[in-house]
């Protein structure tokens, strides 16, 4: 097991370094620099001084190494769009709305999705099965900003029940949370259903029935436990959905969170902020990949033995 963890960690580390190099190169191939805007033309010598001050005159690999060295110390530089604070400071206050809204989305969406998927699997081809499948397909295929538009239209514009956008009073959180909840709800409805169905069709369930166990005991003690394994691995794609969805939800509902800053950093060529956000997100993904791998190996001894993935 220790060998497995070390091997996975090393491979993730390599992946992360390659990704960081790719991101760094991509970032620097975006045409134009931070001082190329036309509103305030700078004299050449001042621009050169600023470039030197920010280290932008060095060769690329020096910039990369210097940057990663700083990143190791949580020093991501100063965002060009608000020079009064550091990138870390900005991230520190921007992640709050994202976490509150996205977290509530998961907390509300995932259990409903799991219950819905379970109910669908236990009552196959009934109306609840069709409702669950329809919700799962809708939630997984329709882009978040489409759901958000419809939510705003129905609840804010036509019914006047809730405010359409903003951040502050909890009343304004309801619509974005609903928009966020669609993804975990759909993901879990679909995977809980298929995991339950898979287990229900296994021979051991027939044996349990033949032995005369009550249906309730079969489902809660045996089927549910065995269906939990695949559902652990689904957490990752769902997390990806939430993280990328946050860009659109926050743009839609005008929430000052990480997603909104990500978009404005791309528009304003804010290299330090953009780079820091991309690195943070890829690092989160790497870590959650690693965790789900390890968790999966813990739950499923077969993986541990032959060391292969999934």
């Amino acid at each position, binding site marked *: 097991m220790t060998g497995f963890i070390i091997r996975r960690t090393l491979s993730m580390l390599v*992946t*992360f370094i*390659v*990704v960081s190099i*790719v*991101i760094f190169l*991509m*970032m620097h*191939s*975006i*045409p134009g620099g931070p001082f190329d805007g036309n509103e305030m033309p700078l004299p050449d010598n001042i621009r050169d001084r600023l470039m030197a001050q920010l280290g932008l005159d060095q060769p690329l690999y020096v910039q990369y190494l210097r940057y990663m060295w700083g990143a190791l110390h949580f020093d991501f530089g100063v965002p060009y769009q608000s020079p009064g604070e550091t990138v870390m400071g900005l991230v520190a206050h921007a992640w709050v709305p994202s976490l509150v809204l996205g977290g509530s989305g998961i907390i509300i969406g995932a259990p409903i999705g799991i219950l819905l998927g379970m109910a669908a699997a236990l009552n196959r081809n009934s109306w609840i099965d069709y409702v669950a499948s329809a919700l799962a*397909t*809708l939630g*997984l*295929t*329709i*882009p978040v*900003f*489409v759901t958000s*538009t*419809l939510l*705003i*239209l129905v609840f804010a*514009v*036509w019914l006047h029940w809730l405010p*359409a956008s903003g951040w502050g009073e909890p009343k304004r959180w309801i619509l974005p949370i609903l928009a966020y909840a669609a993804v975990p709800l759909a993901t879990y409805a*679909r995977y809980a*259903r*298929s995991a339950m*169905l898979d287990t229900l069709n296994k021979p051991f369930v027939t044996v349990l029935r033949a032995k005369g166990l009550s249906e309730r005991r079969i489902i809660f003690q045996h089927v549910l436990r065995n269906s939990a394994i695949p559902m652990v691995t689904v957490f990752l794609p769902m997390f*990806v959905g939430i*993280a*990328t969805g946050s*860009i*659109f939800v926050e*743009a*839609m509902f005008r929430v000052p969170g990480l997603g909104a800053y*990500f*978009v404005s950093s*791309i*528009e304003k060529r804010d290299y330090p902020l*953009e780079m820091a956000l*991309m690195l943070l*997100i*890829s690092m989160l*993904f*790497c870590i959650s*990949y690693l965790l789900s791998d390890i968790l999966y190996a813990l739950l499923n001894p077969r993986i541990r033995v032959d060391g292969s993935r999934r």
Partner: protein
Amino acid sequence: MTELATQATGLARPDQTRQHSPLYFAWRRFADNKAALGAGVVLVVLILMAIFAPLITGTGGNEQAFLTQSLAFPSGEHWFGVDDLGRDFFARIVYGARVSLGIGLSAALFSLVIGLPVGALAGYLGGRFDWVTMRVIELFSVVPPLLAALLLASVTRGGLWAIVLIAALFGWVNVCLLVRAQVKSFREKEFIMAAQALGASPWHVIWRHLIPNSVSPIIVGFVLAIPLAMMLEASLSFLGIGVQPPTPSWGQMINIGMNFIFFYWHMAVFPTLALALTILSASLLGDGLRDAFDPTLKGR
């Protein structure tokens, strides 16, 4: 073959034991799936509308023919109303289908062009090539496609072809994995070994035996790549770094419509519904095809 057998045994065989091809059974399973069938019909109608757009709309998608009636609500004359720049909104939605479907189809085609050979080679050769391919795919799985696409789109400043290429860059992974799995499972079959023993070159084995046997994952991969590409296009255009105006794109129209949502709701509703309907039918069609080709996966 059947005739020869009948003659040899001298027995008349009843008609209903006629052999059906696997494709026939796949079609039967697909036709049983009402949602997928309906989605297929909707998609065909949408494609026909996109192709024959000039015939069903009064004006072109970009003609500001109704400037005096700007922002008019839907009526008998303008089914979806008029937009802020005096363009018939129905015409813009229909021309938007050209952009959305066109990008979806061409991105899926490019995904196939990259994913098919790489997947077939990785599955057949195994070893080092397979290892490298899988590590590259692992890199793609760590970076969320939409975020990376955002970066790439801001590097290339959007545009139709840039979006098609970006969508293909992330679409080939699925096709590659599907083809690789199929080729890998067929590589060890007896008929492949027989072909190899008869001296068939790897190229011949892949081209004549392995790829024809992978037709179903290829079709499924192709169809499922379409809604993903359309979603990517709509998302990028929504953020303003995708298809640039005046070319009509639903994502971009939703973004503009959001500014008018409190008073002129038609500006947001129609592109939203059009996008949802198209992506939904393309995904349902893809899911239906997957279930039809591989009944063991049914209901996943």
